[in-house]
């Protein structure tokens, strides 16, 4: 039964850290976007789209957290009996998306803040600004992949 608490630390880290990365990233973009909106309120839609992009890391974190919660029975009928080592396995599996989600959310936010400057001058080039941001997100996707594969490998 002791394993449950450790597995839940994994959930907390995946959701909390990746979510923080997204929150910081979205915050950075929002600050830049407000500056642009003061000049040109009609770009609200475009900037909102850009601001939403760093939100995916938080979603990946939530996804990983949900998968763990499902595996250990927190969402579902009853808690699964976990040994300490199984608990650690869940914790370790949560780490990739927790760490990479945190940093990539922040850096994606920075790239997008620059994209806001880009669409201030050339609104038609928004697509390219998004592509640059997606380069950063790649590593959150890979981290999520590692997390998922590790989770699927744990027998409970």
């Amino acid at each position, binding site marked *: 039964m002791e394993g449950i608490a450790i597995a839940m630390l994994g959930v907390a880290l995946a959701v909390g850290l990746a979510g923080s990365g997204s929150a910081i990233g979205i915050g950075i973009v929002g600050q830049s976007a407000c500056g642009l909106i003061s000049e040109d309120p*009609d*770009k*609200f*839609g*475009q900037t909102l*789209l850009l601001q*939403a*992009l760093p*939100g*995916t890391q938080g*979603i*990946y974190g*939530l*996804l990983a957290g*949900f*998968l763990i919660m499902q595996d250990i029975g927190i*969402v579902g009928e009853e808690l699964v009996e976990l040994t300490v080592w199984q608990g650690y396995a869940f914790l370790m599996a949560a780490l990739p998306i927790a760490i990479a989600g945190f940093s990539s959310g922040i850096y994606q936010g920075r790239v997008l803040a620059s994209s806001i400057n880009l669409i201030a001058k050339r609104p038609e080039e928004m*697509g*390219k600004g*998004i*592509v640059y941001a*997606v*380069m950063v*997100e*790649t590593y959150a*996707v*890979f981290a*999520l*992949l590692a997390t*998922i*594969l590790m989770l*699927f490998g744990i027998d409970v």
Partner: protein
Amino acid sequence: MPIIDMNKVYILGHRQERQKIFNLLHQMGTVEMLDVKSGEAWRDFQTLLEPEQSSEELFQIDSHRSDIRFCLDFFQRHFPIRKSMLEQFTGSRLDLTDEQFSNYVASFDQVESVHQACREAEEKLVRIRNEVTQSQNLIEDLRPWASLDLPLEEVEDGSWTMMDLFIVPFENYSVLQEALTDSFSEYFLDKVFTDEENVYFFFSALTENKQEIDELFRNKAVTRASFPDVKGTPSELIDSLNKKLESLQHEKSIVLSGVEKLLVHRHMLMACYDYVDNEYEKHQAVDNLARTDNSFFMEGWVPVPVLNDLETMINDKTETAILATRDPEPHEQVPVLLHNKGMAEPYEVVTKLYSTPKKDELDPTPFMAPFFFLFFGICLSDAGYGILLGLLAFYLYRKLTLGESGRQLLKLLILGGISAFAFGILLGGYFGDLIALPALLFDPLKEPMTMLIAALGIGLFQVYFGMGLQAYRNIKGGKPLDAFYDQGFWFIFLNGLILWIAGITFGQWIALTGAVGLILTQGRSQRSLLLKFFSGLLSLYNVTQYLSDVLSYSRLFALGLASVVIGMVVNSVGDLAAGSIIGYIFLVIILVIGHFFNMIISTLSSYVHTSRLQYLEFFNKFFEGGGRSFKPFRIKNNYVDIVETEKG
């Protein structure tokens, strides 16, 4: 042929018909004008030709244009037209019929008076704004003195006594008082007001002590509050200023209601702006021409398919103009116009976001289109979201009048919805797990490795396909050996490695053959034998590039799973609420909002990640880009769209 062939076109005509031909070309919008002075005709016939210069009228038109712009901006500042969320992406324009448009343009002479009125209103508003700020500042300055019952004009130095209003920082006040009592026997100090920072006081003393007092005040950071040119006590002044502010507000509302009356001209101004702007373009295009005494000469590019239309038009509608065409020469920078048919057409928007192909290059659009269709579906992989997205995109497509790329994007999303629907059925996603139907193919949640290997397999196929296209380019470009060395050996080497890893020992010999081939050929551009060998050997390092390319496709698996699992999260959150009647209402709200949100986010990431796979993993195998897009001389719309009459 996805890239349209272009022909060089020359038009020679009488000067009198120049404007007419210009109007015709402008309306057709199929010719890209070139500057004659940079073409060869100019070199060859320089003695005959003179540069045509845009007329004086250009300045006139430009000033009209900026006048109208001023009025429209002025209206927008005070009575903005708000754009809806959707219009911020699509741009909002005024729909006018041809007839309405010409009616508006016919009342062009009103522009002058509207502009005059706008200017005057703007001047008044600026003056009012300045006066408001001034009065507000004065009120702020007077406020601390409100309890001083002394007309301000009487506060002045006389020959025996001096008096004035002063402000001293709070912490200096008591020190100042002590210093005054110590140094002067005769003075009068009346504290009028105190706030957190300062003490405001009235001070009077003998004029003969003025210098010492000034000295002392300077030391204690005392400042003088001076109110020149005002009469009356501070409280009277504040009252009258407030009255003035009210009357200024009133005046402002009168001016604004005057402006509001002008708003009826807004549509007319919008139409006139587009008209004038296009006139400006036409007049400016004249700079590209050359002329002799009585004729003009122009040069441009025209897509071959519309060449006939252009010829008939020039022959039918003009009397003097002659048109000549020729094929482009190899050294010429031909502009590129993409034209894909059927299903591949919407995917042009993806290619164009990356780069326009060069004129002799393969247009990657038709090759990329099926992959894009497939990948988008795998990333979204939910039948429910697929239907929803398809219908939403279809609705917008029918409802909105959009530019070319907007239309293409919506079509792409409709196709994406269809693909996601198909993959949702294959992989068993219906709004997450809302409808529990078994997967037709397999369930990626239960068989993650199958899904991962499938994603990497599709990726490997696309990478090979890209290499194949490059090999085709090499062969077509007369370099079949390059195709064999650069793509063939890699193909052998990679396949050998894969077999080897898969446990087939014979694979190592295939890999070795490929590797030897690569070592022998990849350094062939180097001079010395040693360098040839080493750069050949070094090229094997590129295997990491291929490895990371293929691994990058694992995102298909991760994103596909993400959209479904987030859907499941929404469902289980909704489940928590279910139970009572209110609970079921919450359940429905949670499901609707949650799934809609997930659909939007998942669609966005499906689109961008699928694009990224095309750009970085596929295009870099065979596509260079860097071509110049075809930019025809045609009607531009800023504010107005001309719609056909009675179309409903």
